[in-house]
């Protein structure tokens, strides 16, 4: 399998962050954003084609999982948000 292009990698990065925003749960959303950024930053150091391809495929399958779970979490989102998302009055 040929190595993914720079456009494809950036596209995957943007999709992951976009999917992260869809989670109604504050903790999952923040974790997914942080993990994506840190993961791509760490893997940017990879140079050989096989490991780049496998990292790309791994991230792609994680994106599929995240898309499904964003729907599930939205269906069961609690009506009250976390205190972190509510403007603090004190």
């Amino acid at each position, binding site marked *: 399998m040929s190595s993914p292009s720079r456009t494809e990698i950036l596209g995957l990065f943007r999709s992951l962050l976009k999917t992260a925003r*869809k*989670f109604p749960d504050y*903790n*999952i959303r*923040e*974790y997914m954003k*942080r*993990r994506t950024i*840190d993961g791509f930053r760490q893997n940017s150091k990879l140079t050989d084609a096989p490991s780049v391809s496998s990292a790309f495929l791994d991230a792609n399958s*994680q994106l*599929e*999982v*995240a*898309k*499904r*779970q*964003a*729907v*599930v*979490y*939205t*269906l069961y989102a*609690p*009506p*009250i*948000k*976390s*205190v*972190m*998302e*509510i403007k*603090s*009055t*004190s």
Partner: protein
Amino acid sequence: MSSSLRRTTSISKTIAPALTHLKTLIQPYSATAVALESSTSTAYNEEEPGAISMKGVKISGRPLYLDMQATSPVDPRVLDAMLPYFVSHYGNPHSRTHLYGWESEQAVERAREQVAASINASPKEIVFTSGATESNNISVKGFMRFHKESKRHVITTQTEHKCVLDSCRHLQQQGFDVTYLPVGSDGLVKLSDLEAAIRPDTGLVSIMTVNNEIGVVQPMAEIGQICKKHGIVLHTDAAQALGKIPVDVQEIGVGLMSLSAHKIYGPKGVGALYIRRRPRVRVEPQMSGGGQERGLRSGTVPTPLAVGMGAACEVAVKEMEYDSKHVQVLQQRLLNGIRSRLDGVVINGSEEHRYWGNLNLSFAYVEGESLLMGLKEVAVSSGSACTSASLEPSYVLRALGVDEDMAHTSIRFGMGRFTTEEEIDRAVELTVNQVEKLREMSPLYEMVKDGIDIKSIQWAQH
């Protein structure tokens, strides 16, 4: 994972908002869903829309969760692995005659491999149970009962989990001898105490790897060596250690290990027991029945839960390095934040030999219950969930030699994979404000500030 599962690989933009709209239209069918709806709707305060009022406490939103030792949220990746086994692949893994059973069994065996890989064991050495409590029961009671002719003595520590201590008490009632090793003020067990307690008829040593209340990590490798030297089986409760610090059954040399899924972002209701095969460890089963799980634990293995545990173990191993770095940063932030603004803060347990995600602090001159009442926007606990029903200060802190008044004001902050730095900052803010407010009201603190030594006061007796 089975590739025969059909999945819609692209959730189009039109479906998700439509589903959200559907959610508001669909009436919940099950009784529990109706109960949940009605309980949350009556909990809403009429004057302030969006507030929760429960048990006399009013909070504006869901508290930030800092109680990871009690339980942890299920990781979305784990939930994704479990859902097919609730929805369509619902067979009993012990049914040998049809596809439903075959695919269920395949999933359970795959989960078993994932759990075994996370602790460097063979899948044949993993038995699924209902949780670490059941695994501890099988390890302590089952092992000693099997060897009751030759082995009559068990060694454990004073800081073990309640299920181990209760199992030991049960054994004592049946005529076995149990030695409860003391721990130092840092929470660590002394190896010399362990060696001195060993008798010719000692069968089992049970010491937990990471303590759930204070987060202290015991020197398991050295303990394993001592046990191996004397030919005694070592059991460890690794429920809090799995996926957080490296756990290797070959390195430690354990014969029995208890694991729990809901501490590593997996589902509640499932755990595992590692039972060594070489040299073989024999236990008497505590659950009688159809002989499932090699006759060691009868009962249908809950496929979705076992799959969830396997997925949680796999994710935990993959993310262990990243998570532990993150949690270390969080602990430093929490500790520095609190210590820079408050004095009289004591960490319970060793500062070096600990897991970063568990911080148990005592605040001097502050009453514990009132501190917790003021921290309703932070979900923390004082001591362990198992003992919080009684008014007694935690037995773990008492074993550490902590004074009664300091034991009462202990708060356990539990951080994990999903905790953010902003949550830590907010928790620091709330804790410091509450402690300062309470200390301002405290006459004891005033006396301390004036330089009076509290312990030297002769309280007047009427």
